[in-house]
């Protein structure tokens, strides 16, 4: 563990990313205390520019809602959607990839054609269609994101499993009479953990982006204040009030950037061979 930290910390960018992410998490956790009022409350006159009133540091939107409050409450929505949808897509992608890679042959063919079917459709367009069909709500958005983002997991895992399958320790396990389930679960999957963690961190970032894009297009959950929603609502007044779109946009940028940096750092830390070669 100490080793892991040392290698992770060697990547400066990753540390910066981690700091940003921790700050965002802290902000979302503190939101109910910092801004006890609902972020939808119309608290002041509309279009107050940022940094002109201490009480409303980031100004107000076209309906007089506190932008800072919206940002803080929106953070938890974005993080939650990112995290949950990633977990769901891992739950779909890992079994499919593992089975395809382990058994090969026709199982592999069937599962991979199925995966390619999803990959051949542009993922954002598919997400839009899914959300439109199932009516926008936080659940349907999470499911739509999961459905469009599991194929890379399956493909990555299939490759990993295929290469691990021919290793001696797996052959030994087969010889010792272990069942397929045990071999996959106990021998192979633990060894694929590090690439999955790296991929997952990137997927959280992608999921936050997809959720924002959906909300921007008006396909977000109408009862939840999210960053994408604020940008979408502010886009129409961008010539009068740049700040309404700018601050949530910056928040999305920073969060996604942070997650990507962390992904890089994790990659270095979990894959020592790669990082040493880099030095």
């Amino acid at each position, binding site marked *: 563990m100490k080793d892991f930290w040392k290698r992770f910390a060697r990547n400066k960018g990753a540390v910066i990313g981690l700091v940003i992410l921790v700050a965002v998490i802290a902000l979302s956790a503190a939101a109910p205390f910092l801004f006890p009022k609902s972020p*939808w409350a*119309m608290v002041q006159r509309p279009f107050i520019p940022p940094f002109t009133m201490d009480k409303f540091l980031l100004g107000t939107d076209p*309906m007089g809602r506190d932008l800072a409050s919206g940002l803080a409450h929106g953070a938890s929505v974005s993080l939650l959607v990112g995290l949950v949808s990633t977990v769901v897509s891992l739950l779909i992608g890992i079994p499919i990839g593992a089975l395809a890679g382990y058994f090969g042959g026709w199982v592999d063919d069937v599962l991979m054609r199925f995966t390619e079917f999803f990959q051949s459709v542009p993922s954002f367009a598919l997400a839009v269609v899914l959300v439109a069909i199932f009516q*926008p709500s936080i659940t349907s958005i999470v499911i739509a994101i999961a459905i469009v983002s599991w194929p890379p997991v399956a493909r990555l895992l299939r490759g990993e499993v295929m290469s691990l399958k021919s290793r001696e320790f797996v052959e030994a396990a087969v010889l010792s009479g272990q069942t397929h389930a045990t071999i996959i679960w106990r021998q192979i999957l633990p060894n694929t953990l590090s690439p999955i963690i790296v991929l997952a961190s990137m997927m959280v970032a992608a999921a936050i982006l997809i959720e924002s894009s959906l909300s921007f297009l008006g396909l977000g959950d109408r009862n939840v204040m999210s960053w994408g929603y604020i940008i979408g609502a502010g886009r*129409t007044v961008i*010539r*009068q009030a740049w700040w309404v779109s700018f601050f949530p946009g910056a928040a999305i940028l920073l969060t996604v950037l942070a997650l990507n940096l962390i992904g890089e750092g994790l990659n270095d830390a979990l894959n020592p061979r790669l990082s040493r070669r880099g030095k």
Partner: protein
Amino acid sequence: MRRLLSTSFAIILMAGAAFAAPSAGGKVNLIVQPEPPSLMIGITTNAPALAVGGNIYESLLRYDEKLQPMPSLAKSWDISPDGLTYTFKLQDNVKFHDGKPMTSADVLFTVNDFLMKTQPRHRNTMARVESVSAPDDKTVIFKLKQPFEPFIRSFAFGSQPIVPKHVYEGTDYTTNPANEKPIGTGPFKFVEWKKGSYIKLEKNKDYYLDGKPYLDELIYQIIPDGASRAVAFETGKIDILPGGSVENFDIPRLTALPNTCTTEKGWEYFAPLSWLWLNNRTAPMDNPKFRQAIMYAMDREFAKDVLWNGYGKVATSPFSSKLPFYSEQEPQYAFDPAKAKALLKEIGYDGKPLKLLPLPYGETWQRWAEAVKQNLGDVGIPVEIESTDVAGWNQRTANWDYDIAFTFLYQNGDPAIGVERNYKTTQISKGSPWNNVEGYSNADVDKMFDDAAVAYPAAERQKIYDKLQAKIMEDVPVAWLLELGFPTIYNCKFKDIVTTANGLAESMRDAYIEK
């Protein structure tokens, strides 16, 4: 002294402007949005078709901003004291665009044949008519079965455009080739329609009014995207933006441009009124006190000032204030959250969450739903906004599958035509989102509507409608929001672009460019 001087100077200036003779010539670029399916307004009566077709076709009467009749194809008219006989004298020298004269025979053909086959609404009006006759070429007489005061307001171009008998008689009206190249009597003739691009009309040189129209050409540009329409106006490609053709949030920017004028006039006939359908069939909306609480909870001034940029007016009656027989009756519902809370406490409202169906007509309506949700939430009514598209909204309101739903409806010139359909028991009928969707039913109200429709003359109707408005205000079958304002934004060099209650569509004959 100086003030006196400057005042008189101003008066002289104003008088000078008023007497300056309009100059002929020039062309105007307008917007028609969306592209109409056809310009034959005897068959197609949706808003964009009327917006263009109103300059090609004319009817017997036009209406001023108080909805009082003005001459159009009828030079003068007379109503018998018993309210049963309407006699119209037609203008002289009226010709259709193909050169043939327009006579009373065309009017008879239009009201007895053509519109009877194409317009359900015309059939409703004619159900009250016993006979239409034409003693000579220039006279038309309508005889009614019983007095019907709103009848005088049913001769607008949108409901009764006069079509040429010699073109349509004996043909299939809907497939007649003249529908593609409409022939009317109006101040402008159809020239060309480039689908998806523009519709061009030119001056009718044989128009029966001397000197009119002033403009040589009307070009209706078709630009599907709202932001592009706003930009087209900014760059000067468009001279007149009819109400509703740009998004509300673009309006402050456009009106701030130099040499730009706005007017809210020209919507008096339609007088769009917005409200929330409250589903009277289910608890807690079945309780009038709960519905009153909703009225007190809503900050409608805020909606007007912030969401509609100050255009429009807070509704003070089930009738739009532009409508004849409107009167402001008690009770009125000012923004008063404390009163709303007290009412909710009194009826023991349990905090059951309600679903709110916004109108899927763009950003303004979405923001409005959020504001209402917040207003109701503040007094302790939890509201969840549902997402829907136009088809879904139609289906859900028509099938009464909602708690609270946004809507707005045209008032169509008379309470007996545009208002009673929303409150009478006989108008409760599943399958249409334009009738008594809220399910309000009150025998007294029904009777008052029936009596008022046929009472004669207008003063008698007014008495009944006063009582009626007070009763409905007390019951709050729906939660009235705003009389919507759709400002027309235009280049100030154009004058007299709105001279009737129907706005641009039939006013271009009077419009001119100030030199």
